[in-house]
């Protein structure tokens, strides 16, 4: 019953045109030599050159990467722990509150998360800077990690772990040698998600950043509020390119892995 009717082809092409055309236009005009962004005046890469000399942007980018790496790593550890607690730990006092706190940040408007964290940091007299952004990002992205990991843990066959215990593993060894390798893809995608969320975040970072710790989104924000600028177009193009290369590589790697697995299975059947 799978057939490509005209309706399906049309809706797919229009849909994907809508999703990708704005970005393609943005990329094209990042190579525009004119300062007037909407008028094409010939090909040039000069905006990329100016961008590389703009120290404020480079500093902000460095801050952003530091925050993203640290916060997503802590969030992955905490989020995986939270997922284990939700799926495996059974009943304990305060379980409902715990699961509520894990899921609530997913639907919490960013403005509220940001505001409440800022009020906390001021309340306890913590100076705002990279450290406070990391705390904030870790908190909301660990919830995303725990959702990703727990959805994998739910489908995990617990008899595998029991088999490991039966064969003489301690429960920690069983976790490290059996459970972790199997849920590893989910943990990795959790980390990637946390990393991207952190790179992307403007609102929470705006609340929790101090004067010395501007992240790239904050920098972009203050620039684009004044209107379209060719420098931002160039910066956007670089960011889109990095993401595209990353996602496509990741999907090719997984595809090759699954192809190899299929080939192995076929070979095993015929052997």
């Amino acid at each position, binding site marked *: *019953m*799978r*057939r*490509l009717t005209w309706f*399906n*082809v049309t*809706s*797919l092409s229009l*849909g*994907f045109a*809508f*999703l*990708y055309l*704005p*970005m393609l*236009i*943005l990329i094209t*005009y990042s190579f525009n030599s004119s300062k007037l*962004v*909407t008028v094409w005046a010939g090909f040039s890469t000069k905006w990329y050159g100016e961008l590389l000399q703009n120290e404020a942007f480079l500093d902000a980018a460095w801050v952003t990467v530091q925050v993203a790496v640290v916060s997503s790593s802590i969030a992955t550890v*905490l989020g995986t722990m939270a997922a*284990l*607690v939700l799926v495996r730990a059974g009943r304990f006092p*305060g379980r409902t*509150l*715990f699961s509520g*706190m894990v899921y*609530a940040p997913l*639907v919490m*408007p960013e*403005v*509220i998360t940001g*505001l*409440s964290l800022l*009020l*906390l940091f001021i*309340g306890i007299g913590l100076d705002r800077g990279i450290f406070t952004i990391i*705390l904030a990002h*870790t*908190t909301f992205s*660990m919830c995303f990690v725990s959702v990703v990991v727990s959805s994998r843990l739910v489908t995990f066959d617990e008899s595998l772990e029991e088999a490991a215990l039966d064969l003489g593993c301690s429960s*920690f060894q069983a976790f490290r040698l059996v459970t972790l390798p199997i849920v590893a893809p989910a943990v990795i995608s959790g980390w990637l998600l946390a990393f*991207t969320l952190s*790179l*992307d975040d*403007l609102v929470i970072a705006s609340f929790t950043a101090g004067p010395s710790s501007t992240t790239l*989104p904050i920098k*972009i924000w203050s620039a684009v509020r004044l*209107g*379209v600028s060719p420098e*931002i*177009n160039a910066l*956007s193009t670089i*960011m*889109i390119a990095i*993401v*595209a290369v990353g*996602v*496509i590589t990741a*999907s090719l790697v997984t595809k090759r892995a699954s192809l190899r697995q299929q080939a192995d299975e076929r070979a095993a059947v015929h052997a």
Partner: protein
Amino acid sequence: MRRFALIALPYAWLLALFLVPFIIVLKISLSDIDLAIPPYTPTLDVSEGWAGIKAFFRALDFENFVFLTTDDLYWKAYISSLKIAFIATLLTLLVGYPIAYGMANAPDHWRPTLMMLVILPFWTSFLIRVYSWMGILSTEGYLNQFLLSLGLISEPLTILNTPTAVYIGIVYTYLPFMILPIYSALERMDGSLLEAAEDLGCSRLKAFWLITIPLSKTGIIAGCFLVFIPTIGEFVIPSLLGGSQTLMIGKVLWEEFFNNRDWPVAGAVAVVLLLILIIPIVLFQRNEQKQRELEG
């Protein structure tokens, strides 16, 4: 012991960085504005003991909430946020459903690629995706240039800084959230159900209406909530595309806090916003629960 540590660490983290800040917001929303830093009173002084705590609670009041009802800026902003979120959700559904349908009916070997194409924008910066529409929709933007050159319009249209631009921005950025749940519902559907409906006398269109739509209902509901809930508190899109005409509560909160520095009112705005969000969130949870029961 190990189990205790496993539970305690994430638990303590969430308590300290999610629940406590939240209680602080609640408390500040009940406080009065003061010009000192932190710019609100009362502050809890535990050193005075029980008397201090009593004095602290006596000073709290609902003044800020009363203020929200008297100044029509706020309730207008709430109503307008709900309205914009509602219309934008419907528009996203109208745009997203045909795409999800097309994906679910595409040949098997195409589907991973189509799936990746839907998810890819999600990984790119939200801010940049919203920004990309500024150049398209402005008065001298690409869309107007295009339409003028075709002779379809004689004067440039004003789209940027209007609610229309906000709708476009929301549909564009939240589209994957609509497509994915609908796609997964449609993909699970057994194709022979449609053949059976046709065999029993339905036309294609009728079979779509009687079988496909009801069977993708949970996907539609999930997609709608995934768009509706975050849209209500949206800040970036109305700020960049909506101009001063578009009133949305996320933007009001931001301005109250950063521009007017009225923290207690900002806190009250946040508390009311959350109260409004509880209803759709509970409904969404129910839908998810129902779906899990159907699958299990």
